[in-house]
């Protein structure tokens, strides 16, 4: 790579960083809500290399809520001495995206790559009370709310986006947000 090219990349990166902003706000009902920037036309993002873990321990999914970028491989683990199963009947209500990962013994992990964005309701067909969620964001711009319902999504390039808020048991809500250094969107979700 020539010096010119290197310099150009450096300048472009710095410029992009300078243009990156934040989206912040609050979500009611608060804790454990997810806010993400919806798909951006004509733009794709490389899949992350990290493999977050969704554990099953003490007859619960742990964490109860996991947010990942589309293309992420999630590792499912059984840490109980009883048999578990992991399946999801749909992704965002689309039953064609339902999948059953099967059964595996304690300590083993089973990976799955989520290539479809949406909300994945995790279930165990042995213990119907077990419930977990994976929210697959179409972009790398997402955040989970804190205990007060506040969120902040960093490194969002300036522009106009559709921002989606989701909370378990509530209807998701989409708002259009202009990011110019900062953007703000508050959500009040209803059941």
């Amino acid at each position: 790579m020539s010096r010119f090219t290197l310099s150009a990349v450096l300048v472009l990166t710095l410029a992009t960083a300078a243009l990156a902003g934040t989206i912040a706000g609050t979500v009611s009902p608060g804790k454990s809500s997810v806010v993400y920037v919806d798909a951006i036309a004509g733009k794709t993002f490389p899949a992350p290399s990290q493999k977050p873990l969704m554990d099953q321990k003490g007859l619960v999914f742990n964490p109860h809520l996991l947010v990942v970028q589309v293309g992420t491989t999630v590792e499912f683990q059984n840490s109980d001495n009883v048999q578990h199963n992991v399946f999801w009947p749909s992704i965002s209500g689309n039953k064609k995206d339902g999948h059953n990962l099967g059964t595996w013994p304690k300590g083993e992990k089973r990976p799955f790559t989520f290539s479809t964005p949406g909300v994945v309701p995790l279930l165990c067909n042995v213990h119907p009370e077990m419930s977990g969620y994976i929210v697959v964001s179409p972009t790398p711009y997402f955040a989970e709310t804190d205990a007060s319902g506040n969120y902040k999504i960093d490194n969002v390039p300036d522009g106009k986006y559709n921002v989606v808020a989701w909370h378990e048991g509530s209807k998701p809500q989409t708002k259009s947000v202009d990011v110019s250094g900062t953007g703000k969107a508050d959500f009040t979700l209803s059941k």
Partner: protein
Amino acid sequence: MSWLLFRANVGLMLLIFMVLLALMAQSSYAIPAFSRQYGTSCSTCHIDFPKLNDFGKAFKDAGFKFPKDDESMLKIPPVMLGAPANAEIWPKAIWPGTIPGIPPIGLRYNQYFQYTSASRNQINIPGNTGPYIPATDFETGFFSIFTGGNFGSDIAFWVDDDISVSGANANGGLGEAYLKFVNLGRLIPKLPAHVLNVRVGQVELEIPFTQAKSIWISPYDIYSQANIGVVNPAFNQQFVNNAFAFAGSGKGIEFSGGLHTGGYNYSVAFIDQTTTPGYAQGNTNAYVPTATGSNQGGAGIASDSNFKDIYTSFNYRFNLEKDKESRNSIQAAGPSGPRDHTYLNVGTYWLYGRSVQRLTGALLDETSATLTAREPFYRVGGNATFNYHNLQFNALYMYGHDYNLLPVDSTGALVPLPVTGAITPVGFVHGSPATFSGGFVDAEWLPYPWMYVMIRYDAVNSNSDYHNALVPGGFTNSPFNGASSVTRNRITPAVQFLIHANIKATAEYQFRPSQSLQLITNPITGLPVAVNSFHTNTLVLGLEYVY
């Protein structure tokens, strides 16, 4: 109303019923005794409550605990009755135990609606003093409390009691109440822990298919079969009045071992004889000490015989998964998740006891005395279960045999029955035994996790039941309302819906055995024969919930 219109209405009602069920069958979280402690659904242990799945069987085998890592599964920690380190200084300290963090109480209630076929009107005849049988009838079932759990140190407990039955308060009874010392095999070197358990108290015998926790509304006919000998004077009479039936529970001690999820399991129990009507509630004889030391009002003596009935059973279950790891697991690992094993279980059981009958007689020196017939009897049979995924077939056969000790007078001649006192009995001789046989086969299919479709065939062969009905209007003398043949057949299709994991709707149709109210005399044998038999079929709808 025309027949077509009637059918259309029935179809519409069924459709509405199904839609209502579907609407109600949303997310389900049942909370009986163990559900609360572990924060898990009834369906973790039950296919269709109270029927256990393989994990529920393992939970019960382990002494109402998760077979592994029980402590980490408990959402409500137990209360320590002594720190675990106290075990190290025993016998200078009480061995540490636990009690459940919350009272492990479950409650159960059921109610029914019954429709009886038109042939009921053959019983509703003018002049019949029996109760009138309506076409339809609402009925409350039982309201019962049950509590169970583990006290630590592998000591399990269970108590269930029917608080009311058929709407009558305090009219129920104690079902089971016991302590179970689990995994005593750990105290025996080189043996698996599960090789020996001891259960003490009032227990349902380890019969092949539980009656007390059956999913069927109607009992297994063979389990309700008492052996009452022939009392009809037209036939050779029998001095047998054995009230024992497998459906009841027994008081005593049971040694058991093995697992119900694969391999062998056995049971050896010694229980009070419970064959004498009237003794089940206890004898309050003022001249003998009772269990509580109280002459009246204390715990009485519930049997009138030294002899203890002996019950044994042995089962072997072959799990049929090809994969060894799956085969030896508590649940099989299916492609879409754990499930009950595909298995074949075969077993056998045997009970030996003595029924007691007393009558006023005399000794050979003509001294007046109460004579006691201690009549040996046995029940023996076999059972089999084949389970393939969500389809199960069950079968049980039983043969019952009572020796029939007939009273004789001082000349050795048989005393005519019933004994009236006109001829004084002085002893007993063996007569022809009173026997019966029968059993059932059933198929149970779970097409959905919330729907159970079942069909069962019951059969009981009893000459004495048939003969006892053969007296004019004689069904009042028969425990089976006029069995019109030696074999009583019943076919029972049923369907059950779990509205939630703890609420169940059931429909059971019983094609009942043939009955008869009329008889003629066989011109060849001169004996009465039942004619004009009919079936009083019933449809029973049930609603049941536990919480």
